[in-house]
């Protein structure tokens, strides 16, 4: 459930990056101030441990398929929320840079989806509440199970929100949610079971590790602050969604307006609303829709009255003339595109040949 750049719009990606970067900064401050410096190598090494553990398979009972550990909850249990968030984020950075796990813009989403919910919601509000001060095996299992499920459900839901608000995928919101949530319920159950298994083992072998982890988190003192954090994050996400709504889907708004006002009154208010929307759009979202306009304008010499031209721009598939001209522009576009691709690779080939003639060695 890693988000990818290819499914993101700059608005959503940017908003999530803002949320993640803000949380990283906040956690860095907390770790620096409150936590003793023996945590520093611990975070790094546990991060590497989770990274490595994620590559080990286990067989899931009943289905027989193989599963992997996520690890976010385990990190929260061992390190406390702030250090755990940083650790999860760092693992995701390495995965994004080295393993094509989504991309650099989507990293903001992934850090938030996979880090915030286990560390700041599932762990403090579910896991710790169930554990209380007596970590028995039963409580560890229940706590891990519910916390893992909750964390993954929230994360998956966030992915659905991010994808649909970006507008690149055509999956409708309800369908997507209907697929993601049940799948991640199953994943959450497995994650909970595995987490319980590991945590019980550690607790039996070295209970003092669990004790020190339980004691060192200051989060219990400021539950309100965390709730506020959660709301801030949700606000940022909704803000991103709003900017999507305004920027890439004026036709959605327009369509409901036509339904309300009727076709005859299309010109006046529609022009007005659309113009205002366009102005807003230009202010909020920097780049979208420009080439859409350009494509329609490049329609070969067909003069269309302004109102229908506006309509054409936003509903090309409803206008046969527009789809014809868009076919023509598409052919031109395809031709041009192939040419540019060819040019790009030709340039690359020439450069490579030049480089081979004047070899540059690697540093020893």
């Amino acid at each position, binding site marked *: 459930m890693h988000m990818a750049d290819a499914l993101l719009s700059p608005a959503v990606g940017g908003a999530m990056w803002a949320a993640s970067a803000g949380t990283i900064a906040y956690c860095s401050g907390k770790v620096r101030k409150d936590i003793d410096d023996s945590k520093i190598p611990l975070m*790094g090494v546990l991060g590497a441990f989770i990274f490595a553990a994620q590559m080990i398979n286990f067989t899931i009972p009943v289905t027989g398929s193989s599963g992997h550990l996520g690890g976010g909850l385990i990190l929260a249990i061992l390190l406390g929320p702030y250090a755990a968030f940083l650790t999860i984020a760092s693992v995701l950075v390495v995965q994004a840079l080295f393993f094509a796990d989504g991309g650099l813009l989507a990293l903001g989403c992934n850090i938030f989806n996979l880090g915030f919910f286990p560390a700041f919601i599932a762990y403090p509000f579910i896991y710790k509440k169930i554990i209380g001060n007596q970590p028995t095996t039963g409580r560890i299992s229940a706590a891990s199970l519910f916390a893992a499920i909750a964390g993954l459900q929230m994360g998956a839901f966030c992915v659905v929100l991010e994808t649909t608000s970006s507008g690149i995928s055509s999956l409708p919101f309800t369908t997507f949610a209907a697929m993601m949530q049940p799948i991640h319920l199953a994943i959450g159950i497995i994650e909970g079971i595995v987490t319980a298994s590991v945590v019980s083992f550690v607790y039996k072998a070295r209970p003092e590790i669990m004790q020190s982890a339980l004691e060192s988190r200051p989060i219990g003192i400021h539950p309100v602050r965390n709730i506020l954090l959660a709301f801030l994050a949700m606000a940022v996400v909704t803000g991103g969604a709003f900017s999507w709504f305004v920027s890439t889907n004026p036709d959605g708004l327009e369509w409901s307006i036509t339904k309300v006002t009727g076709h005859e009154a299309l010109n006046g208010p529609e022009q007005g609303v659309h113009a205002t929307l366009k102005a807003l759009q230009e202010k909020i979202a920097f780049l979208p829709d420009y080439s859409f306009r350009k494509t329609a304008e490049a329609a070969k010499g067909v003069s269309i009255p302004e109102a229908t031209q506006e309509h054409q721009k936003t509903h090309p598939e409803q206008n046969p003339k527009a789809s014809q001209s868009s076919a023509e522009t598409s052919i031109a576009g395809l031709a041009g595109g192939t040419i540019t691709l060819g040019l790009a690779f030709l340039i690359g080939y020439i450069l490579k040949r030049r480089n081979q003639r004047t070899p540059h060695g690697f540093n020893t």
Partner: protein
Amino acid sequence: MSHHIVEVKNLRHVYPDGTAALKDVSFVITHGESVGIIGANGAGKSTLLQHLNGSLEPTSGAIHIGHTPLSKGTLPDIRRTVGMVFQDPDDQLFMPTVFDDVAFGPLNLGYTPADVEQRVTEVLELVGAGHLRDKPPYHLSGGEKKRVAIATVLSMSPDILVMDEPTNGLDPFARRQLMKLMRDFKHTRIFTSHDLDMVLELCERVIVMHEGEVWADGPALEIFGNDTLLAECRLEKPFSMQGCPICGRKTHAV
């Protein structure tokens, strides 16, 4: 170059789970001595070593380094004086490149970047790792890691070099290189090892540990000649003293 004496008096260490790793250990090591601490696994060698730079706190007893008592306040000074090389170089090389690791110590001691640059270059040349300067640790072989680990400590100019199982896991060539390096270090050297031949070659004095106590402390040849003592402590003579494996003749009469 001052006279850095290592004085351990009635040192006792009990781990939280109740194991008495050290029971009343005492010895004095004077400046410039080369001392090998040998003993079975679990005899308390590593525990003892960790006390020498304050990584562990004694349950009772006292340690003085160059007449300075080891305590929380004096730790920074003690750590400038006592350089410790651990068993697993991966525990010691935690920075992105070799240069960064060797520079870590001097930077913490407050040297200027220019000074640090000079120190690091010198020390890397000394251990024969100059060409490894910009390499990340995971690109190094076992022997290279060991040498760099030593460099990370030498860059702090310690007066006393403490090493835990230095030749562990090294191939014969790397082992020889390391031994030459240790021979060239002119200050006090203290190390633990199972490599008794190395101890024989490099150390004039040997301390034998057994079950948390000092069972013998004296000249190397004397100790290695005492078969009963060695057997009691789960040790043997060094191979080079055990006689020719082919003809059976003893090469050295003790």
